[in-house]
């Protein structure tokens, strides 16, 4: 932990001598897209799960309702889970008592539609000045999906149905910018009426810190210059354990870290290309700094492409 804080401090210090950008690949800034602007993003994440390539794809549509209100819809697809918890997820001891050892790793799943998430964000504070601003926004997430997530950690972009909310503060100060996104997740239960299984996921709280800087160009000459931005994002999450019932009987969790309460800090460095000031390409990966997430293996490779579409009023 001390080492990661030191790394964080060194990074903050090093970026303080450069211009920074707030088009963070993994976290929204407090700023919104402009009124009547639609951004369309396709993103993909890959990691290896004991020889099995896990892929997640999301298609995100963001629309500026006004300068202060923004609506985002994300549709996601993956081969992370089945539509039901796998056979053998719940076992029975010699007395018939249910227990679980979690979902077996490396299992092959079909590619399925995961979920639709709706996010509504309101920018409630905007203090703009020459090459700097401080902005704050509040948001709410609502997600509905059809996959059977087999880990305690909730995630509203894909894995779980449920809702969440948070607050974002973004500071841009001449040569230094940072964004803090703090929120919580209330996941909905998974229910398999046919097999009498009910699984409750852990409630979660998270704090994400995002930093970035403009590598190129040093001086702007035209919109046609490709901008290269570097980002460092730190994602801290803590969540409760999963509770599973089979026909009303509590299922004991036998030493399964993926189903137990947990917390972790993840580092997500990214490189971003902004082409003709309108098309955005992000390449990034995720590595754990403290503990780990049990919803994915490391490293996670991520790619996204985004385009802005401007509508007339």
């Amino acid at each position: 932990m001390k080492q990661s804080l030191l790394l964080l401090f060194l990074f903050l210090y090093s970026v303080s001598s450069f211009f920074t950008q707030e088009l963070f690949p993994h976290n929204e800034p407090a700023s919104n897209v402009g009124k009547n602007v639609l951004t369309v993003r396709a993103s993909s994440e890959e990691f290896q799960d004991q020889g099995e390539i896990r892929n997640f794809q999301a298609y995100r549509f963001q629309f500026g309702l006004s300068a202060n209100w923004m609506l985002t819809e994300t549709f996601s697809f993956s081969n992370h889970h089945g539509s039901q918890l796998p056979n053998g997820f719940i076992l029975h001891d010699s007395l018939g008592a249910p227990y679980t050892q979690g979902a077996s790793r490396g299992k092959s799943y079909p590619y399925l539609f995961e979920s639709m998430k709706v996010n509504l964000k309101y920018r409630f504070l905007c203090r703009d000045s020459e090459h700097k601003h401080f902005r704050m926004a509040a948001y709410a997430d609502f997600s509905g999906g059809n996959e059977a997530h087999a880990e305690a950690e909730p995630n509203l972009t894909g894995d779980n149905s449920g809702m969440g909310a948070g607050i974002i503060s973004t500071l841009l100060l001449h040569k230094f910018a940072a964004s803090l996104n703090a929120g919580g997740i209330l996941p909905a239960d998974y229910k398999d009426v046919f097999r009498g299984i009910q699984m409750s996921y852990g409630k979660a709280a998270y704090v994400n810190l995002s930093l970035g800087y403009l590598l190129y160009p040093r001086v702007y000459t035209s919109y046609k210059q490709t901008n290269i931005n570097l980002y460092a994002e730190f994602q801290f999450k803590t969540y409760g354990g999963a509770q599973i019932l089979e026909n009303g009987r509590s299922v004991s969790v036998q030493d399964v870290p993926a189903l137990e309460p947990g917390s972790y800090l993840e580092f997500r460095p990214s490189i971003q290309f902004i082409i003709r000031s309108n098309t955005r390409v992000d390449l990034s990966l995720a590595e754990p700094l403290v503990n780990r997430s049990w919803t994915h293996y490391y490293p996670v490779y991520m790619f996204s492409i985004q385009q802005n579409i401007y509508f007339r009023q």
Partner: protein
Amino acid sequence: MNRLLLVIVSLVILALPVNAQFTSVKINVIGLTCSACSFGTERSIRQLKFVEDVKVDLNTNIAEITFKKGEPVYIDQIVKKVYDAGFSVGKVIATYHFTNETVNGKSWNVGEDTYMNLSTNAVDPSGDKEMTFVADKYMKKSDYKLYKPQIDAVKMMVKGNRSGHLYYVAM
């Protein structure tokens, strides 16, 4: 018949709004650093039908806007477009072309609207003159604070029903 046509044409001409003769405007857009943000702001301003061209200095974020000849120009719509794009306005400097306006002390009328110069300089109503708009959303808050007592004093004096706008400028 011809006389009726003449009357109708005259009425239409009289009913046309009289617009201030702005030839160009420079707007300092604040709260942004990236070229994608400037691009979005420029696209937003270009949607206005009276805008001929927009040139943005990406390092200073000053947008120079020129207007189509003969089209009425609405500075407030340009300012709104900047806010709609998600940013703020630090300064609005417009170039005004004077054509026979009668200046009454520090102010002059254009149609129903009144323009009032808050600076100590006298208004020379000839040719092109630059003026900085003085209003809450048209300049940095710290700059507006300097003019606020003067504006409050003017408001006390010109109380009453007004159909047009009263624009404060510094020239």
